[in-house]
């Protein structure tokens, strides 16, 4: 296996609150091979967005990286000094946000916003940078790019704005693109267009993607592997088809049994009882045990690191065989 482009090990992100310390991300580990797409999936509060923001240094002011390492191409950016960190992030990582209207500059023409990367990061001349911007707009499927480059964000539809965001993300030739729920604010037909665009760009340009979403099907559509997050930790990882077909963690299974989906079998939707824990005072032992129907005595105490399984899979559940047995009895994915 080749060296991963991104390797996150035991990442900790802390918030300093009046009532104490809140660990939004508490020991998350995952890695992505070059040219691959990894999905980070979980509910709100699972730490998926904070983990992503830690990678680009966009954490809120009250949060900080409290431990662990983030290696991009083998170089740890947590330990690097500030200027090196900026250089690494600026040249190799870019980000696509959920809300293109708030992420774009409202008073700058979109062509100029796309040209900024080539101008500053790649050192092109103003004229070449403009040409590059129009090329990128064509690449992301914006019709009539020469004219649209003169438009302001409010003059574009939601779908076109998200295409502009993607063009900006591509503009400085990054190795790694981070996507934070890029289609959540869009309608289903536009979401479909953007997901298919991202997939084809990833295949054609060979960029590496990390894709955050709460929607399992969106992850399945865009990513080759997945890391499921719960209460600040990664609880299961593996290839998308394997994890969704035969989940080995009760939380993943619970999610699959609770969402209505065209490809899932359910008589009745069964929800996960209870609510995610308060991260300022997480439960001891496995964090999912208070909501888990398979929980036993030994789930209540101790640490639950990822256990390596066959086929490059891993789970934090020590009773993953019980989970697998349950899926064998009652499959989650409907046969075509």
């Amino acid at each position, binding site marked *: 296996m080749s060296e991963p482009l991104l390797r996150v090990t035991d990442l900790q992100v802390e918030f300093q609150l009046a009532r104490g310390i809140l660990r939004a991300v508490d020991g998350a580990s995952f890695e992505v091979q070059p040219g691959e797409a990894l999905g980070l999936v979980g509910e709100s509060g699972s730490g998926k967005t904070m983990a992503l923001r830690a990678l680009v240094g966009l954490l809120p002011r009250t949060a900080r990286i409290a431990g662990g390492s983030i290696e991009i191409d083998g170089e740890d950016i947590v330990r690097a000094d500030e200027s090196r960190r900026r250089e690494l992030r600026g040249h190799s990582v870019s980000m696509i946000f959920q809300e293109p209207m708030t992420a774009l500059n409202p008073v700058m023409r979109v062509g100029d916003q796309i040209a900024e990367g080539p101008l500053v990061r790649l050192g092109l001349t103003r004229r070449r940078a403009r040409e590059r911007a129009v090329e990128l707009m064509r690449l992301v499927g914006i019709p009539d790019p020469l004219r649209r480059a003169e438009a302001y964000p409010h003059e574009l539809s939601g779908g076109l704005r998200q295409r502009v965001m993607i063009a900006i993300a591509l503009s400085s030739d990054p190795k790694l693109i981070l996507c934070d729920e890029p289609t959540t604010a869009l309608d*289903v037909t*536009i979401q479909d267009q953007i997901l298919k665009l991202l997939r084809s760009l990833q295949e054609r340009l060979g960029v590496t993607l990390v894709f955050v979403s709460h929607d399992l099907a969106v992850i*399945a559509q865009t990513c080759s592997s997945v890391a499921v997050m719960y209460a600040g930790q990664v609880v299961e990882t593996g290839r998308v088809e394997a994890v969704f077909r035969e989940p080995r963690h009760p939380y993943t299974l*619970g999610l699959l049994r*609770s969402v*209505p989906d065209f490809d899932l079998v359910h008589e009745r939707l069964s*929800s996960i009882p209870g609510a995610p824990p308060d991260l300022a005072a997480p439960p001891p032992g496995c964090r999912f045990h208070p909501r888990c129907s398979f929980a036993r005595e030994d789930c209540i105490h101790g640490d639950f690191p990822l256990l390596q399984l066959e086929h490059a899979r891993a789970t934090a559940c020590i009773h993953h065989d019980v989970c697998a047995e349950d899926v064998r009895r009652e499959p989650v*994915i409907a046969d075509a």
Partner: protein
Amino acid sequence: MPEPLLEVRGLAMHYPLRGGLGRRLRGRAAEVLRAVDGVDLEIVKGETLGLVGESGCGKSTLGRCIVGLEEPTAGEIRYAGELLSAQREKATRRRIQMVFQDPYSSLNPRMTVRQTLAELLRAHEMVPKKQIDARCEELLELVGLPARALDAHPRQFSGGQRQRVSIARALALEPELLVADEPVSALDVSVQATVLNLLDELREKLGLTVLLIAHNMAVVRHVCDRVAAMYLGRIVETTETQELFTNPRHPYTQGLLAAVPRLVPGRSSEAVAVAGDPPSPIDLPTGCRFHPRCPIAQEPLCSERDPVLESGPDRPGHLAACHFAWGEPVPAHVPEIIQEAT
């Protein structure tokens, strides 16, 4: 078909746009946003009808007209045969209630649950004064919340619990028709199921009729008996759920289904399901409103003639508004086989 509980005929809701003075002075008509533009719809007693479509298609506006929150520009709404206007008698208002999308902004943050419910029970004289407290507890039990929640404020609840309170509020008036506008889309995935199941249970227990407004096709397939798909202010297709998902006839419905991301990657279509952006409801396309994005549109037919919503030759309950819904040519792309709903 049994007698409908609610009947909507030719309903239109047009909003005049501000700042049209210059246009009018130059002798041109003021601009109008046609949110709902000629909708016919029937809801049968006891069924759950799903209303689907993308944002801006007018589905929420239609729901608001039905509840009486908007006075429609044209058309009529009949409830059990009786004509309804937006100004309704208390007794009529009570029969149609609404659950809103965002449980964070649709509950009064300064009122406890008890105050919210008691106010309604008092104003509509639903129960004798002495029984108000008992009825409040009953309502909470109905939506699966403990009686101690009565004295809590909305901020003390999670999103799912708030949505239960909103449902209890709608049920306080013992409605016959419940309009639920995206009741789960603001909630976390693991909580959505509980609210959907609750709506289903209540329908059975109380004999409710439900109009579920949603954009999520999988949710609709799971809970609805019948579905109506809307595009730019019009209903483009309506039929039983099973039929709509296995035999969609309108190219827009086909596109909507093909656009749903699939958990099994191989089951989604390679091609983009529907190209382009929806046109503005201020400047609607001529002829069939879907023709600029339609993969099977034919000129000049589709840009000139407005298709009518009509049923298939051997499918009386299946209506579609496409020139080619029931004849040649064959639709360009039919989504992958979708599992039969259980």
